[in-house]
């Protein structure tokens, strides 16, 4: 590890060490005090299911069933820890790798695959689970989150003290995204409006082939205070610490305390996407190093030591994961090609003469082949 620059591990909030030992932190230990064995097992289960799903999706891509897949391998703790800190009314604006967060929102993970199979640009109703569509244009959605949070303020859903009403908004983005103008404008707008927003940056150390040192020269968490946004660095492979720092940031947001920047320092254990080949730009030694710090392993070790992780529970989750895998395969294979005419649907919410005319022409054109005219 470097001790300076954006890849240092200095100043990370940690509650569970890589070897699975609990450590105390004066500010954050109280934030996880209420998590009993069942809750901890729940986090473990979440991570295991998400990883299984991720593995399954990767395999499906290899089999040609998906056009592309972006793994979240290695980032399960950051995603599940932060996601489980959310309240139902909170709203999430993800990037494209937040499968773990999606799961915590109650989105059936299989729904994520329509996009990657190429049958839908979205795939779910964001308002059902308060989890917005994936956004592929890096950083753009951080402004949407900020605006949404400004709307929450206008709705009077901040600082009322009513835990079922006060609402926070969370947006997820990567280390690479911090270089984009939009992400910095989001910090400006969030700060000036004191918006109830958590900017959750997963510094997984790589933006495709570029290490975080190509995007910044100091830790990304340093960015916040320069905009008047408090920030915290957390060990992103420690699900408890991620839960704790997010819970605190959410509470600040909901109570009217304004935005927080969270930098979760983690590692993209897989390729950027199934199209990528990390061997071109990073070492096996680095990958090994991080495999030793697998976010699931450390929780496994800890819960095994405390006796919370019984064989029965493991078997139960294993079965559940198998079922999810099976369900995922079936779901994907059943996702047929959409009707061609859907291409023309929902371009506008109200009629548009050009779309209507083109659609009419196209339908007539298609129909002309019905009689077998196609060359």
């Amino acid at each position, binding site marked *: 590890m470097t001790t300076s620059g954006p890849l240092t591990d200095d100043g990370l909030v940690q509650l569970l060490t890589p070897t699975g030992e609990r450590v105390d932190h004066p500010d954050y230990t109280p934030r996880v005090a209420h998590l009993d064995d069942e809750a901890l097992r729940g986090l473990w289960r979440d991570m295991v299911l998400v990883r299984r799903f991720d593995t399954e999706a990767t395999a499906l891509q290899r089999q040609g069933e998906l056009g592309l897949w972006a793994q979240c391998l290695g980032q399960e703790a950051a995603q599940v820890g932060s996601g489980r800190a959310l309240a139902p009314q909170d709203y999430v604006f993800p990037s494209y790798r937040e499968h773990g967060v999606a799961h915590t929102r109650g989105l059936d993970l299989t729904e994520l695959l329509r996009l990657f199979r190429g049958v839908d640009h*979205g795939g779910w109703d964001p308002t059902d689970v308060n989890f917005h569509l994936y956004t592929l244009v890096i950083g*753009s959605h951080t402004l*949407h989150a900020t*605006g949404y949070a400004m709307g929450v303020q206008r709705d009077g859903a901040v600082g009322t003290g009513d835990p079922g009403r006060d609402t926070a908004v969370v947006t997820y983005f990567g280390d690479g995204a911090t270089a984009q103008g939009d992400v910095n404008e989001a910090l400006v*707008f969030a700060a000036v409006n004191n918006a109830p927003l958590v900017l959750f940056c997963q510094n997984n150390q790589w933006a495709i082939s570029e290490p975080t040192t190509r995007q910044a020269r100091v830790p990304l968490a340093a960015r916040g205070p320069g905009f008047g946004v408090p920030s915290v660095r957390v060990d992103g492979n420690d699900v408890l610490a991620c839960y704790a720092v997010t819970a605190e940031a959410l509470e600040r947001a909901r109570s009217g305390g304004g935005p927080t920047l969270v930098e979760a320092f983690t590692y993209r254990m897989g390729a950027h996407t199934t199209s990528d080949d990390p061997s071109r730009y990073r070492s096996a030694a680095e990958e090994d190093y991080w495999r030793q710090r697998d976010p699931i392993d450390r929780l496994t070790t800890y819960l095994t030591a405390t006796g919370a992780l019984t064989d029965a529970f493991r078997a139960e989750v294993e079965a559940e994961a198998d079922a999810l895998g099976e369900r995922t395969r079936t779901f994907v294979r059943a996702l047929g090609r959409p009707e061609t005419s859907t291409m023309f*649907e*929902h371009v506008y*919410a109200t009629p548009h*003469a050009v779309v209507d005319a083109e659609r009419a022409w196209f339908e007539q054109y298609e129909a002309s082949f019905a009689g077998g005219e196609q060359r």
Partner: protein
Amino acid sequence: MTTQRMTFAKAINTGLRKALEHDPKVMLMGEDIGALGGVFRVTDGLAKDFGGDRVVDTPLAESGIVGTAIGLALRGYRPVCEIQFDGFIFPAFDQITTQLSKMHYRSRGRLNLPVVIRVPYGGGIGAVEHHSESPEVLFAHTAGLRVVSPSDPQDAFTMIQQAIASPDPVMFFEPKGRYWEKGDVDTDADPLAAASTLDGARVLRSGTDVTLVAHGPTVATALKVADAAASEGRSVEVVDLRTISPLDTTAVAESVRRTGRCVVVHEAPVLYGTGAEVAARITEECFYHLEAPVLRVGGFHTPYPVAKLEHEYLPGLDRVLDAVDRVLAH
């Protein structure tokens, strides 16, 4: 019906006020639109009357303005953004092109983004660079956006309210050179009950020899051309497109089938401008009726020139009349 005589700017101001009164979810966002009332005073008095939460002076960042407007719309608001000048819309181009336009489609109709982006555009005001441009085609090419431009106070008043009421994102191009021109506006009529002004063209003056197609700032020019041509015994039909997207050529084609000749005029450069599409479409629709190719008059393929030369650059009375002569001489 009570008609009031007012400037184009005041007509928009009045329309914005009505929209703010009518729907508590409507809000205005932009640079200097609050206490100052906007650099053109189009939002004059609105911050005072509706407060800083509904008439928001934003940070100086156009991408941020449009990006946060998208988020506000997702939360149920109807943001109306003001971009200070045409030349400053480009920092927001990504948010408009990849986000605003596509959200409805990407969500298969589950999400609407009723966002209006007001852009004072066009030249003729003696300004420095970046303050006189006509970028409308750069938005009209992108599906998912409606692109409209009113040409007189009455239409401005109606169209801004219909744009705000629309569930679709609307790029609302205001011909700033016409802001101080006056017209009668029926401020009592309910624009939401009136016929849609966001779907098609209107014939402003009928004629038999040539069809002159314009939008926004060039509509007034076209009407002057029709007057001048009339004095030379030529009958010019003037069509105001009103909307660039959708482009509804029905009214134009109907006219061209009668006149057999067509001239399109806009301030934007001719090369790859909106007139190209009008010409291509009209030629396709009216091929056997055309006595001459559709001619186009507009800006040249140069950056908008210095103020002292802008009147030579802009398609004024003389250049349009020349095109009318040429199309008739064919």
